[in-house]
């Protein structure tokens, strides 16, 4: 599983960061980013799916 954040959609709700600070970072202006490039480690796959399902801006997506 790989995930991306659309920076144009992200508005800094920081729900992803609250769910997994290991997987996501948020800068001082609220812009979220994925810390881990490439495959999401197995241990974080579930929380990655939760982040996708909880983002109020639909900014996180799974990519092939």
């Amino acid at each position: 599983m790989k995930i991306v954040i659309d920076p144009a959609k992200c508005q800094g709700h920081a729900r992803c960061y609250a769910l997994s600070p290991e997987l996501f970072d948020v800068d001082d202006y609220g812009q979220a980013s994925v810390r881990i490039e490439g495959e999401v480690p197995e241990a974080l796959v579930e929380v990655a799916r939760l982040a996708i399902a909880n983002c109020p801006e639909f900014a996180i997506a799974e990519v092939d």
Partner: protein
Amino acid sequence: MAERGPVASWATDFDVMDPAYIEDPFSIWDDLRETCPIAHTERRRGAWLLTTYDDVTAVAHDTTTFSSTQIMVIRPDEAPQGAGPGFLPYGIPPISADPPLHTWTRRLLLPWFSHRRVASLEPMTRALCNRLIDGFIDQGRVDAAEGYAQQIPVRVIATTLGVPDSLADTFTGWVRDVLEFADDQLKRIEGRRGILGYLTEEIARRRQDPKDDLISSLLAEEHDGAPLDDRLILGICALVLVAGIDTTWSAIGSTLWHLATHPDDTARLVAEPTLLPSAIEEFLRAYSPVTMARVVTTDTTYAGCPMAAGDKVLMNFPAANRDPKVFDRANEVVLDRAHNRHVAFGSGIHRCAGSNLARMELTVAVEAWLARIPQFRLEHGADVTWAGGQVRGPRSLPVVF
């Protein structure tokens, strides 16, 4: 002034300051979503009320048609800026601005509410909560709204602004006058005069003697190579004070009301503290305090509704968060709700700039309370009162433990 008189129909004559709406808006939203999801009123110079998740988020994202220059529906007779007694001139803060003004003014504010800075405020927030609890725990009862919830955000915001928290009650009074009693023109003007007058003096003091606080940092900022206009600094500081107090206090109060009236949820949260993060999001969803208005910029038809330039549109985030098309068991509090795409902090470019701070304060307030008061309930015969309009939360919440 106030537009009283009974509401004839919630679909065609709604009034968010009506006592029935303040007492129980939930059933009104449920009925409207079924029968007339976009309600209208001629009151307050004409306004629309959105009750579904899709409509609320769509309007929030269309900042061209729906402008932020008027965000309150309950101030229909607002004097123009700088006009009349009690109206000191102030610059437009980002909450009331559209791009491009919104874009750069918001960036002045965001770092002050980043999760890193908010984390640095957590220890003082926890100490504050425990100090408040120390003050009443031996009495076995407290008004959890006035004696606890109301006392927390104002002091954290005072720290951010760099103003003394000994003035907490004064700040709270001014903010209530501006938001909660906004239908009373005299109170509204008094509250506003108090806030703007006080902050004007603080800004002058900070110019002489800068400190590590938001006011000083704004004085040091530049835009397009020039220092910020004093009026803009005043507008931003007033925004932080007004928006940072009433809203979070309402969320803390509503959460404590829920726990006082749902002992099973309280017991579960005490037994399973790892549920706290999802529970906090669920309380934010189910008891979202804030409804924001937009003003229509040009005659338009939205979802079949003929909206005229100048009409207000109320984005009812609390109602959106109870939309059964988006949330299963929407009217129930489900502490471990896994999928919770709530919009308690808004949607789109105006996402609450203080959301990290509010989330931290709510979390710490609940955590500190439950650690020391794991069982509590409403006092027998308790007279719980609510504030409503565009910020909903309990103002009197007597509990015993």
